[in-house]
Structures are given as C-alpha cells and as structure tokens.
C-alpha cells in the first residue's frame, strides 16, 4: 500500500479572515514498509501535514490517497501524539486495546493483540497501571503500542519524543528503531530534531518555513539495525550537516519571528 500526498495545501483563516499559508503544494509518496521522517523548523506546518493525513483536518486543496488493495479491518492511519493523549481513566492494557474495542474485535483477539504489543514495547507488569502512575517514556510506549495495535496502513507520529527529557528521548529512539524493524510498517514521523530524523528514517523530507514547502528529500543510506555507534560515524554526521545547512537560516528566521507556533 502506497500513500500518495498530492498537491496538499492548507491555509488557515484567522478571525479577521486573513489567510495564513501553513502548507503549500506538498507532493510526497510513502512507500510500503518505509520509514519517512519529516523535519523542518518550527512553524513549518509539520503538524498540519500530519493532521491532514490523519483526516483530523481538511485540506484547502489537494488530497491524500491510499493506493493498493484494501484489507477491510485495517484502518488507514493511527496517530501517536506528542502529549501521549492517553485516556487517564483506562489502564495501560485498556488504553492499548481501545482501537480494537472500537473495531469490534473479539475479546480473545483483544487479549492476544494487546499482549503482543505490550511485550513489544516492554511494558509487561504494567498492564493494570493507570497513565498517571507512569513516567513520560512509558506513557509514550503505551501510546505507540495503542497505535500499533490498530495495525494501520500508515503509522503517524507527531514529535512523539519531544515531551521527554533528552536521555529518555535518545533511548526511545533506539527503541522505536527496533520496533520498526520488528514490524516493518509504513511510518511517517514528524520531528524538529535532525539527528532523530536521520537516525530513524529511510528518507528524510525537509520542509521550509511557513508556508511549508518541500525543500529536499534525502535518502538515508545507513545500515540497519541502527544502534548507538551509528550516530558517531561520519556518514551519519554528513547527513545531519547537509540537512542542517538547508534549515539553518530558516530556523533563525523562525527564532526572530516571534511566536507563531506550529499548527
């Protein structure tokens, strides 16, 4: 299943009716089993792009198409949000099987799939805990498991680790890399962290500042499985440097331009 993003444009209207162009003519294809990372300076409409693909926003023009044979039970997308968005009244297990309940999966199926993904994100023993009893890193694992349990055609991640501290974040990157290698699903990963994008992605899409346009698409030719050593190698750093050069000026502009956040 390929995901085609065609001429996707999004303008926001503010209260006075003035248009803000968040995204301008985005064209992109996410291939089957591909990990695409989208990186850009703050305020480039990264989150807008993700919300459009998830069907949580309507585009001003253009469309998102899932191309290929459809397996009836598979939803198009599932989202891992930056702020976890766990249901506080549900235990870890109940959070993970939420989507399965909504799909009408049998009790046995819920248990089987639930157990599988709890194991994958290493949360055994925490099934009956409530979200407020977990650390940030664990919350995001629950959120990842909840999205994976849906078995979506495309898994969308919206800066999933930016609410975590730097050390946890690094560990979670390794973890996510391992999970992707285990599942080999199509991932679209939004981040503002270039190292993260290069470390995780098969391809890195570089977005410009508002209005977000695609500046470059970089194929990341690094071996998998990717581990700690990789981030010290020259090839890795070259990729990071190449992308940083493209974003640097724009990021500076964004810094000087006060506070229009990323939608």
């Amino acid at each position: 299943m390929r995901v085609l993003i065609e001429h996707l444009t999004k303008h926001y209207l503010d209260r006075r009716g003035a248009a803000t162009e968040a995204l301008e003519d985005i064209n992109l294809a996410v291939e089957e089993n591909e990990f695409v990372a989208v990186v850009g300076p703050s305020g480039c409409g990264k989150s807008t792009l993700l919300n459009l693909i998830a069907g949580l926003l309507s585009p001003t023009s253009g469309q998102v198409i899932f191309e290929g044979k459809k397996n009836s039970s598979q939803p198009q997308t599932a989202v891992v949000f930056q702020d976890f968005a766990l249901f506080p009244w549900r235990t870890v297990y109940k959070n993970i099987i939420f989507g399965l309940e909504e799909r009408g999966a049998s009790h046995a199926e819920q248990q089987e799939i639930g157990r599988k993904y709890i194991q994958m994100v290493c949360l055994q023993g925490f099934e009956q805990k409530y979200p407020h009893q977990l650390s940030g890193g664990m919350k995001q694992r629950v959120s990842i498991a909840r999205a994976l349990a849906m078995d979506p055609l495309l898994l969308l991640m919206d800066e999933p680790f930016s609410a975590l501290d730097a050390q946890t974040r690094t560990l979670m990157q390794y973890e996510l890399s391992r999970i992707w290698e285990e599942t080999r699903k199509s991932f679209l990963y939004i981040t503002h962290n270039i190292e993260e994008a290069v470390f995780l992605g098969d391809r890195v899409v570089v977005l410009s500042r508002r209005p977000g346009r695609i500046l470059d698409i970089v194929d990341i030719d690094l071996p998998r499985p990717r581990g700690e050593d990789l981030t010290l190698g020259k090839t890795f750093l070259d990729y990071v440097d190449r992308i940083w050069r493209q974003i640097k000026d724009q990021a500076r502009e964004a810094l000087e331009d006060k506070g229009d956040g990323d939608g």
Partner: protein
Amino acid sequence: MATDNPLPPKTPPSPPPEKMVVRHKAYFLKKKDYPGLSLISFCLLLVLWECTGRFQWVPSLFLPAPSAVLVEGWAMIKTGMMFKHLLASLSRILWGFLIACSLGLVIGLLIGSFRFFEAIGNPIIAATFPIPKIAILPLLILWLGIGEAPKVAVIVLGVFFPMVINVYTGVKNVDPLLIKAALSLGSTRTRIICKVIFPSILPMIFAGMKLGMGIALLLVVAAEMVGADAGIGFMIMNAADLMQTQKLMVGLVMLSLLGIFFNWLFERLERMVIPWKK
C-alpha cells in the same frame, strides 16, 4: 619619595570574613499541623454553649443547652417522631435528586455535545437559572396540588441547574486531544460521548451532585415549611410555633448531620468511581 620596595605596603590583618547564613524565607509556606486543635476548639464551643444554659446566661427558651437538645433528641428517637420526619424529608430529597441528576446529565451531555441542542437549550437555561427556585413553589403548588409532587418538583428544579451547568461546562472542557485520539482510533461520535466525554466529566458530575445536595437540603426544608404534615422543615416550623426551642434545635442538628453524611457519601463514591484520580 619613591622607593622600589618589592613588597606591597603592609596592611593590617584583615578581619575574619563575615558569615551570612542563608535563611529560609518561605517558612510560612510549609504546612504546619495543629494536631487535635479542631477537636479541642469544637469541644470548647460546646462547653461554652452548655454554660450559657447551665448558668442562665441566656434563657433556655432562646438557646437551650446542648445537653437539653440531646435529651430532646433521644426522646424523639424513642417516640419514633424523629424517624418519621427524617424519612419524609429523605424520600423527597432522594426522588428529587435522582430525577434532577438524570435529567441534568442527559441534557447537559446533549447541549454540550451538539450545537443543535446547545442553540435551543442555552437561552432557556440562562433565562430560568437565575430564578430562586423557592419562588416557583407557589406556582408548582398551583399546578400540582399540595401533596408530595410540588415538594419533589422544587427539589428537581433546584438540583437540575447545578447538574446541567456542571455537565455542560465539563463537556466543553474535555481535552480536545483525547477526542482526536479517539477519532484516530476509529471511534464514532456517539462512541466518543460514552467512552471519552462521559469519563472525562465524572469529576464535574460529582461536583454538581455535591452542590445539588446542598441545594436539595435547603429546598426541602423551605418547601416543608410552606405546607406539609411531616418532614424536618415541618418539624422545625411546628416547634417554633409551639415555642419548643429544644425540638427546633434537634431539627437543626439533624440537618447538619445530614449534610455531613451526604458529603462523606459523595467523597467515598467519587473515590470508588474515579480510581484514576491522583
């Protein structure tokens, strides 16, 4: 006179440096416990009150001593009068409360979740909410007679508003991210009301219930004072007419205990129903 003395000019030995210890400025923010103070002050108040009666500081017709109130209360328990009045008031409260909470919950969810119902419901609520509910009692008696119905109805009205407003506010303040998450996990709109909005607003529902119970106690007494042959309000009014101040005080104590009991009950229930609350 310039000399090239390589040594710096001798200074007298410097005094030892002053030491300034950092003092804790926020000491008053630290919570201090006064163990037993609540109990002691409460008991002192009771003793003082008892003295007013014992030493005839105040005629017992105006303020009977707590011991006298206790004796009167015991007598009322033995004759079954207390039970009769309590039951009469409680059944009115419970019926009114149950009906009002159910209505408030359903209507609050509807006007909170659907713009259509919001447009209809909001102005009606805004117009009727400010009316003191007790002022509607005469109208209710006109409509429903002088039996139980108007008393229950006035409680329904009184409890309905805090409930519906709390539920509505709760729905409006549900974290939109959770709704987005549910949507992305395949929930439909009605499923979201059951599985995201309802659990989200449970704390607001309990807050509404606590507020509502306070109002229910107030209204039941008021309604019973206007026209009833049983109930705590009737009992108080009747005792006042007959200058039985002890009996009147028993009624007040019963109301205080009822209020405390319901508060305790709702706190317990809330902790049972909302185990995820920190």
